[in-house]
């Protein structure tokens, strides 16, 4: 009873999303809304401003380098978090038990 209802809700969500996206223009290539002056700037001036040919690298580590710093910090944080969860803490207990016996 419950499951088909939830399924139906998700299908409804999907339909709403698809109807929305069908109204958006697609396949316009360089005329689409997101292909704006910022994109043109990256393509035209990145060689002059950063001196590299890989535009992705220019944006990643120059124009938006602060994002990339945040990303390396996420990696660092995940290590700290995973170690705080998984680093075995049983060793001292086991040693204690051995010495008692």
């Amino acid at each position: 009873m419950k499951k088909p209802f939830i399924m139906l809700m998700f299908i409804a969500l999907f339909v709403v999303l698809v109807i929305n996206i069908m109204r958006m223009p697609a396949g316009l290539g360089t005329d689409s809304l997101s292909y704006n002056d910022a994109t043109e700037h990256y393509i035209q001036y990145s060689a002059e401003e950063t001196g590299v040919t890989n535009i992705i690298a220019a944006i990643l580590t120059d124009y938006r380098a602060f994002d990339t710093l945040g990303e390396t910090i996420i990696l660092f944080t995940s290590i700290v978090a995973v170690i705080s969860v998984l680093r075995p803490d049983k060793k001292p207990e086991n040693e204690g038990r051995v010495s008692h016996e």
Partner: protein
Amino acid sequence: MIEQLPIINLILLLTTALVIPLFKKQRFMVTLILSFVVLFIVWLSALYLLYHVNTTGAFYYRFGGYSPTIGLELLINPFSALFTFFVITLLMIIFIYSTADASDGIHEREYGRYYILMFILLFAMFGIIYTNDLFNTYVFMEILSITTCAIISIKRKKKNYAAAFRYVMLNEMGSLSYLFGVALLYMVTGYTNIELVFQGVQDVWVIYPTNIIIAAIFMIVGLGLKAAIFPLHIWLPDAHSAAPSSSSAILSAIVVKVYLIILVKVLFSVFGITIIEALHIPSLLMVIGAVGIVMGSFFAIAQHDIKRMLGYSSVAQIGYIVLGIGLASSLGLRIAFYHVFSHGIMKSVLFLSVGAVIYQRNLRKVTAYNGIGYMMPLSIGMFTLAALGMIGIPLTSGFISKFNLGIAALDGGQGIYIIILVVSGILNAIYYLPIIIAAFLRENPENQIYVSKDKVPLLMIMPILILGAFIVIIGVYPAIIFDLVDSAVSTFSF
């Protein structure tokens, strides 16, 4: 040089987090002193920035000197300066407490890691508040969600793992919904900078309204999940009750507020008042807030574990802030911001004093508080003060928030919400007063009738007392906060 101050703060916090693991061989005291010094320096510079922006006006910090269309920028205005100051002040006080109460379930070898996480948490919150870019906000939000989950799961108990897992799943759903909204907005505007997106959205709103509506829904639901707005609060009581006391205080008093701050930014800076009014989001938020206030209090009454009770009380108090945001007027926003302060302080006092009780007596059941007021007069006294603030007794900051929220509701023609405020005061009294009465009037199991000193370290009592003093100070002289809040509100246009 002042222009570099915000980034210097961020670098300082980050470097401290990176340097702590290299100190492993040294005594732990070195880490603590270094951490405190860094926190104090950052506090001073946050205070100076607050003064600076309030006297000379807002400024932008542009990374690499690029214009905002192609680069990233930080925006330091009275709003962001005020909330970074709020975050660092509360966190510094909770930090002092945590140095003495790290025993609450955290293994000794994890102390260093706990402070690494705390500094990254602070870094992420500073970044979120300062940044003027939607995608950058997402990156910081993810740092924040990993660290908040990690400071819950660092206490290695069965329940913590389950609570942290539930939290990380819902958090991640929230951030991905937010990112989906950002993607939809990027599709129609081509920018991620908040101000440029705002302009783009105003143009596109006429042509493609459904896109904007769906983006708004996804972003608000995502942030609502992370901020535990009423129907999306299910993770909060588990997470907040399982965490160590100092983590609970951080989560409840600060982290949830940071998500509400992003919500305010998204509503009023990204979409703008005309669009959200056209979508009836404010009135929806008001209803959600009002229902949250009542239901959160009802759930809190039913709880036996005191930390769970405080968690549900947070759900109710978030309702006040949402109600204030939903009024969508400068009066409403003003009181929402004031309540961020007021609730942050009161809830940290409650969690920290309960933490002190757990430290000394290991009591978590609501019914076990009989006569404990004689044994721990200071902690329970401050608990009482904060609880009275929650109920809304005059002379506390809680009264000021409720009173002004009532006025703001009347001003917005929403007088019906005053009934909610009164009802919530009564409900709060129903679950807080029995604890206070039991603590001071009932006999305790050990028949101790004389008043003795709290047997907890001074470093745990001091922060509670300082925060308790703040409750009264901003309750008696609310103008201190209101002056700052007013200039923060004036950065949003209505």
